[in-house]
């Protein structure tokens, strides 16, 4: 027994030595070739080989320097080999970044999840003003890039630039609202395209729609609406779609106010307390549906995965997000039912003249900082600048020219293989092409339209817009135009939001109140939806409104509205830069 343990121990020792030595190499693989010399007006660009670590939703199936074509392209053009550290969003990422920040262990470039004031206080990141002036030639030549820089300066506690925003622009290219009111267009057609005047009218139409298809293909009951058990999911499924259709953008996570895109100012009242607000209109309708047995009773208990599965099976008549709808639409296409599908209703269907088709995030949806652990901040900035162009964004999303797409008459067009691949094949090919590895570390989001080619950054989106399905054709015909973006953009004054709001940072006390309020809110919402009579509904409504005061919701409302109003003026320079690009 003892001999055995000694044997195991000595074997283990040799392993440690092995593992230790391999660990010391830090996983550096592949050498970066010395790129061609590249001089620019602002100063010579160093292209000597160097490795920079970047942490965030980046890279492939394993950490380290990647071997795909896009990574090699970056190394060839800039000399920089990126040591990717993949940290997906969601569970655990907040803790990981926090642990790194707390121990001064941040990598060279990292995705910032902290409120800007907190990370500046930690004094672990570089101020980037000088660096971007000297090495940010792409950013400085692009009005949207300059707007991003200006916005991030205005949002920082001391007016200095601390973050570079990636994923500017839009996720969708106008063929459907990112969040809106998606309905089964084929069933709407069967009903004879009844007029929808307002949200109450919409509910009646949806009820009739469900009568047309009371069961899914698998024989399961259909519902008008369904949700899941996350803390904000009831809101997202019941009322955010309606909100965005009016050109209003919610304030997360408590939804006590919203921003009006046309004025860039917040709501004049607490929409949770105002019984005539859109919030209550939507929840009244949800309650009506529940009483009719058309609101999925499992909404309160099912997880997001289970709801997604139901959505894809056609269980719900009304969906509120483009990615949710696309799952079902793809299924209809695959099954040959091309005349069926979900489309978003435009604002004009309700008589609204302001619409939130998509969000044009001027600050960038993902902000990256350069930590003081980086020994070469100049090269880091060079990298950040390099990936900020439309050109690289396309490569980041679809791979290098010739891999998944080609230029046809100057228009980036997806190849046949790219269009017909299964997700499994796509993942496998990704390891060679690198398509998608850097799609959250590039200047523009996948749906943004590149001005020079008038094609979306991810060329699939434009392709699909130009090749509408049968149901989409019926949709545009009904509205008397040629393409889907036209449907959404006609008859409205505004259709995208570019509002940058500095909501401010709550004190610890108020954060506590807010967090506790969220728990109270979701419980109250469940009671409101499940009220069996009008009296019960009124009581649930009053309980909610009165109960709010225990969580200092009025103070929260005042805090956020004051900050939002101040922002509308403060951010003027940003809006001017964005306008100059139109």
């Amino acid at each position, binding site marked *: 027994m*003892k001999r055995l343990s000694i044997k195991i121990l000595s074997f283990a020792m040799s392993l440690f030595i092995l593992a230790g030595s391999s660990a010391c190499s830090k996983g550096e693989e592949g050498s970066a070739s010395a790129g061609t010399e590249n001089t620019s007006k602002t100063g010579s660009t160093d292209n000597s080989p160097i490795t920079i670590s970047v942490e965030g*939703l980046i890279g492939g199936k394993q*950490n380290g320097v990647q071997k795909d074509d896009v990574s090699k392209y970056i190394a060839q053009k800039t000399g920089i080999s990126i040591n990717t550290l993949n940290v997906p969003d969601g569970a655990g990422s907040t803790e*990981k970044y926090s642990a790194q920040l707390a121990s001064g262990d941040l990598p060279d470039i990292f995705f910032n999840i902290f409120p800007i004031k907190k990370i500046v206080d930690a004094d672990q990141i570089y101020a980037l003003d000088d660096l971007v002036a000297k090495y940010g030639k792409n950013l400085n030549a692009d009005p949207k890039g300059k707007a991003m820089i200006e916005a991030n300066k205005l949002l920082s506690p001391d007016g200095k630039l601390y973050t570079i925003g990636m994923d500017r622009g839009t996720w969708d290219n106008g063929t459907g609202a990112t969040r809106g009111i998606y309905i089964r267009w084929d069933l709407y057609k069967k009903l004879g395209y009844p007029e929808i005047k307002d949200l109450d009218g919409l509910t009646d139409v949806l009820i009739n729609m469900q009568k047309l298809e009371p069961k899914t293909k698998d024989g399961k009951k259909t519902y008008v609406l369904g949700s899941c058990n996350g803390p904000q999911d009831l809101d997202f499924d019941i009322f955010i779609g309606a909100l965005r259709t009016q050109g209003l953008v919610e304030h997360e996570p408590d939804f006590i106010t919203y921003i009006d895109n046309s004025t860039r100012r917040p709501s004049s009242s607490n929409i949770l307390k105002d019984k005539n607000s859109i919030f209550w209109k939507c929840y009244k309708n949800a309650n009506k549906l529940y009483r009719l047995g058309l609101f999925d009773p499992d909404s309160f208990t099912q997880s997001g995965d289970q709801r997604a599965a139901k959505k894809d099976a056609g269980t719900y008549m009304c969906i509120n997000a483009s990615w949710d709808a696309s799952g079902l639409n793809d299924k209809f296409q695959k099954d040959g039912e091309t005349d069926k599908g979900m489309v978003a209703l435009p604002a004009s269907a309700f008589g609204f003249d302001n619409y939130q088709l998509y969000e044009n995030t001027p600050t960038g949806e993902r902000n990256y900082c350069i930590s003081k652990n980086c020994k070469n901040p100049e090269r880091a900035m060079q990298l950040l600048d390099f990936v900020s162009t439309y050109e690289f964004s396309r490569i980041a999303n679809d791979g290098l020219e010739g891999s998944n797409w080609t230029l046809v008459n100057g228009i980036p067009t997806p190849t046949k293989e790219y*269009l017909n691949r299964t*997700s499994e094949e796509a993942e496998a090919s*990704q*390891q060679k092409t690198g*398509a998608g590895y850097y799609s959250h570390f590039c200047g523009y989001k996948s749906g943004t339209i590149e001005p020079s080619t008038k094609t979306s950054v991810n060329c*699939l989106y434009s392709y699909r817009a130009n090749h509408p399905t049968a149901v989409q054709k019926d949709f545009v015909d009904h509205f008397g135009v040629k393409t889907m973006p036209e449907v959404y953009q006609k008859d409205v004054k505004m259709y995208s939001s570019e509002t940058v709001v500095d909501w401010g940072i709550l004190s610890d006390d108020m954060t506590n109140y807010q967090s506790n309020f969220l728990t109270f809110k979701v419980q109250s919402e469940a009671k409101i939806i499940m009220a069996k009579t009008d009296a019960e509904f009124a009581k649930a409504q009053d309980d909610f409104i009165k109960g709010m005061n225990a969580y200092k919701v009025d103070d929260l409302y005042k805090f956020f509205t004051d900050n939002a109003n101040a922002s509308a003026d403060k951010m003027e320079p940003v809006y001017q830069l964005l306008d100059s690009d139109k």
Partner: protein
Amino acid sequence: MIKRKVSAKDHLLSGVNLFILILFTFICFYPLYFIFINAFSSGDAITRGVYFIPQEFTTIYFRSLLLYPNLLNAIFISTMRTVIGTTLSVLASTFVAYMVTRKDLPFRKGIYHYIVFTMYLSAGLIPWYILMKSIGLKNNFLLYVLPGMISAWNIVLVKTYIESIPPSLEESAEIDGAGIITIFFKLIIPLSIPVIACITVFGAVGQWNSWTDNFYLVSNPKLDTLQYLLYKCMQSHMTNVQNSFQQQDLGASAKNQITATGLQDAMTVVTVLPILVVYPFMQRYFVKGIMLGAVKG
């Protein structure tokens, strides 16, 4: 041995006993079986409901794991950490447990307090992270086997067991001139096989399932464990709102055949199967106690 006559009442009780146990066994068996058959069924079938045999048989969830280039290496690392980590932990815990049972250990009570309190004392993630980094366990295989070496829980279990060993055995060994180490290896360990088998099983399963140390402190893909790879695979297919935005549009015409639930099922199968294979080997060491029932009525 005098054999008692087995009465009718005994038979009845025996029958009831067996019935309850079998019922409970079924309740424990079906869920894992359910997971197993779902792991081989397509996403659509899972939504419809798979209860008896796999529907629309597919191995797609398992294949998605093969896309990880360091899969084999991860299996190797996981195996190594289980073997080495468990061995170290069992040896160390058993030895410390034995030491604490010895009445001639000064400050014995205080030391035992000192050990047991660790089960309830924790300062959270950040101090732990800082400590691991400071002592050089970042990106180091030792991270997997060193911190877990002394488990207060194991020590408590072993100590309680050792105390049931008749002290006369130890005394006579000492009279024969055996030192502590000898007594430990030649007397205590052989007599404590059942509890050692127990903590070996507990420890091995714990090691096999660990991934958080990998997640926080290891960036070298050569040191990734299997469980961590499974976690990453899961994350990249999550369907919550945040990740929906970030799902890379892979140009798939049949989007997401890899449903989250199916993937979770497959992950469980991959994790549990090796345990089930190895388990019977350890089981025979601690199961003697219930075998007596078969003989002694």
